[in-house]
């Protein structure tokens, strides 16, 4: 009994108690890297200042182990690359020839798309008809993936305004200096973007609205609009864009677009699965207001994509909207 008493410091109960109190972290025990404790006083210190790696570590003449492993890695990488290339090229010769009528891709599915596509979806552009009508569930997943990607970037890069810990303070300062260094009021950029940005917006809106008639659709149009927003931001700065695009706009637009998409498609899935009539007029193929829900879905996807592109850029630049 006494031995157990002596070892109380190292026993599980003691560790659990210490963990409850907060001075022991079980995750840091087995790790080689331990997180240095920060105590609010090192606001001004560069995080990379204390990190000194001697040049001898990466010098191939002094560090023999590195020299040897460097050769091994190089040979192995070349061999692996060649093996991958040869396997892929070997598999390519088993593929059917391009454009043959008896290829496995030319089955009844594509035949039905081509024969009955216009009649069933009302979209002259087959591709949009396929993406947003026959396979709309995939596209909904893609929009959600984009939204989740933005949220992940926000988790990683967003700087909270109310957070006053030293690390956040430093990052905020870094991004502010980054913004100060950029060339402001660049006359060439501004003149070019004054001409280009309206055309980019109009072209993007055209691609989205004509998605069911001509090549294009929600994703391409949204990407064009997002590129226009980024160009405008680059030339005129954050103050100008924040007049019409803040994180509030991003939230509202993304939420409304995704919910509209979800509800619209749920309705058509519900009616389709239960063999009910959907009561959505398909209209005359070729008109702008035709093809049922495809126009609405295109607008939803386009707005989500445009917001996501712009959000990515601002989050990468300054960690905030």
């Amino acid at each position, binding site marked *: 009994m006494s031995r157990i008493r002596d070892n109380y410091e190292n026993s599980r109960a003691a560790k659990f108690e210490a963990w409850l109190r907060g001075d022991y972290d079980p995750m840091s025990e087995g790790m080689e890297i331990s997180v240095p404790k920060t105590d609010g006083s090192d606001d001004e210190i560069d995080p990379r200042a204390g990190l000194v790696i001697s040049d001898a570590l990466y010098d191939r003449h002094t560090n023999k182990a590195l020299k040897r492993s460097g050769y091994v890695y190089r040979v192995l990488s070349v061999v692996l690359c060649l093996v991958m290339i040869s396997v892929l090229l070997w598999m390519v010769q088993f593929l059917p020839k391009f454009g043959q009528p008896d290829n496995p891709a030319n089955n009844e599915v594509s035949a039905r798309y081509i024969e009955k596509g216009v009649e069933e979806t009302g979209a002259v552009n087959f*591709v*949009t008809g396929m993406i947003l009508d026959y396979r709309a569930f995939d596209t909904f997943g893609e929009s959600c993936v984009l939204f989740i990607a933005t949220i992940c970037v926000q988790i990683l890069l967003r700087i909270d305004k109310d957070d006053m810990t030293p690390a956040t303070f430093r990052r905020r300062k870094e991004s502010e200096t*980054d913004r100060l260094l950029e060339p402001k009021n660049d006359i060439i950029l501004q003149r070019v973007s004054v001409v280009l940005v309206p055309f980019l917006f109009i072209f993007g809106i055209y*691609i989205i609205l004509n998605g069911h008639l001509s*090549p*294009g*659709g929600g*994703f*391409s149009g949204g*990407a*064009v609009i*997002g*590129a226009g927003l*980024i160009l405008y931001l680059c030339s005129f700065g954050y103050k100008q864009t924040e007049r019409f695009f803040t994180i509030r706009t991003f939230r509202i637009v993304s939420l409304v677009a995704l919910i509209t998409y979800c509800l619209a498609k749920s309705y058509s899935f519900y009616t389709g699965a239960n063999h009910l009539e959907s009561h959505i007029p398909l209209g005359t193929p070729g008109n702008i207001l035709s093809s049922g829900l495809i126009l609405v879905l295109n607008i939803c996807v386009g707005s989500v994509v445009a917001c996501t*592109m712009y959000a*990515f*850029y601002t989050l*990468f*630049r300054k960690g905030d909207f």
Partner: protein
Amino acid sequence: MKTFETFLLLGLIICAFSVTFTKRMLTAIVIYMSYSLIMSVIWVILQSPDLAITEAAVGAGVTSILFFVTLKKINGVKENSDNEQDQG
């Protein structure tokens, strides 16, 4: 048309190889942009203009801009690298 297609495909291969052999990150991103542009022309030839628009906007535009921003954040852009090469 056949020669034009061959020319574009050769350009793709040249871009893919030169990306791996460039020393400077900035050059690599610019080559990546040109790769995307060539690819978008190839999509038009392959009769899929949807993909061409997307490739030009996303591949050549937004992705490269994000790469540039990241490079600037990690101090990867060396302003006077020619002078450094002269010294070293």
